[in-house]
């Protein structure tokens, strides 16, 4: 019979490395999946997973509901993604400025791909991007997404609708 999350968290708090490893093996794939969808590529998924579990190990003592460790891990991962996306936006801004100086390499009428979608997502605020991806790409329920984004259901719905509108606009530019 598998050990429940609350027991594992209690053991991990007492520096039981095997318990921490079990938590990792139970949820790393899920965290990686969420990170992958939010980032849109594989490049920094390992970093997000690693940083999430390092932060989790450091913060285990402060976890109020040990049974809700899965939700807590996703919240940490989303915060990490927020930071990464902010850094990416700066990099992308520089890249765009640089590309303006060189001739276009691709046909602007080419078919829309996931890359284009993520390009549009990169140009909207992260607080809109994350709920949109969680619900539209990750097929997460509105309630669950609101919970892990630490906002109310009404706020999340508003953000998803705003993201819809902005993505549509960016894709048609």
């Amino acid at each position, binding site marked *: 019979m598998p050990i429940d999350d609350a027991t594992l968290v209690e053991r991990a708090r007492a520096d039981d*490395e095997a318990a*921490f*490893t079990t938590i*990792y*093996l139970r949820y*790393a*794939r899920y965290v*990686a*999946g969420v*990170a*992958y*969808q939010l980032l849109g590529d*594989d490049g920094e*998924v*390992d970093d997000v*997973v*690693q940083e999430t*579990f*390092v932060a989790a*190990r*450091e913060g285990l003592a402060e976890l109020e509901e040990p049974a809700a460790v899965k939700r807590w891990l996703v919240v940490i991962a989303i915060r990490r993604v927020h930071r990464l996306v902010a850094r990416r936006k700066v990099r992308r801004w520089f890249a765009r400025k640089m590309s303006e100086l060189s001739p276009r390499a691709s046909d602007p009428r080419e078919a*829309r791909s*996931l890359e284009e*979608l993520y390009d549009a997502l990169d140009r909207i605020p992260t607080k809109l991007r994350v709920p949109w991806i969680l619900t*539209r*790409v*990750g*097929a997460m329920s509105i309630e669950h997404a609101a919970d892990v984004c630490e906002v109310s259901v009404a706020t999340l719905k508003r953000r998803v609708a705003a993201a*819809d509108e902005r*993505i*549509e606009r960016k*894709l*048609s530019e």
Partner: protein
Amino acid sequence: MSIGPIDQSAMQVRWDAARERSVLVSTLARCERVARRRRAARWIVAGTAVLVLLRALPRLAARADDAGGFAGAAEPSGVRPTSSGHGGNAGKG
């Protein structure tokens, strides 16, 4: 152009056992580094506190001596107690 259906299969991360293991190993190593750094920081803080205390104790003891000899009595005018004991009431009690 509008947002069409999203290819869910393209949005699945390739998370195999080897990758899982490799990230776990690096995570545990990083946790260990963080813990070691934290322990070192605690020792530095504790050591600094002990040093500060060791430096401050003789002065505090001297002050306690000064005050203890004449508890409740006013200092004689024009004579100020010093940490070295000269000029104060140290040794008179």
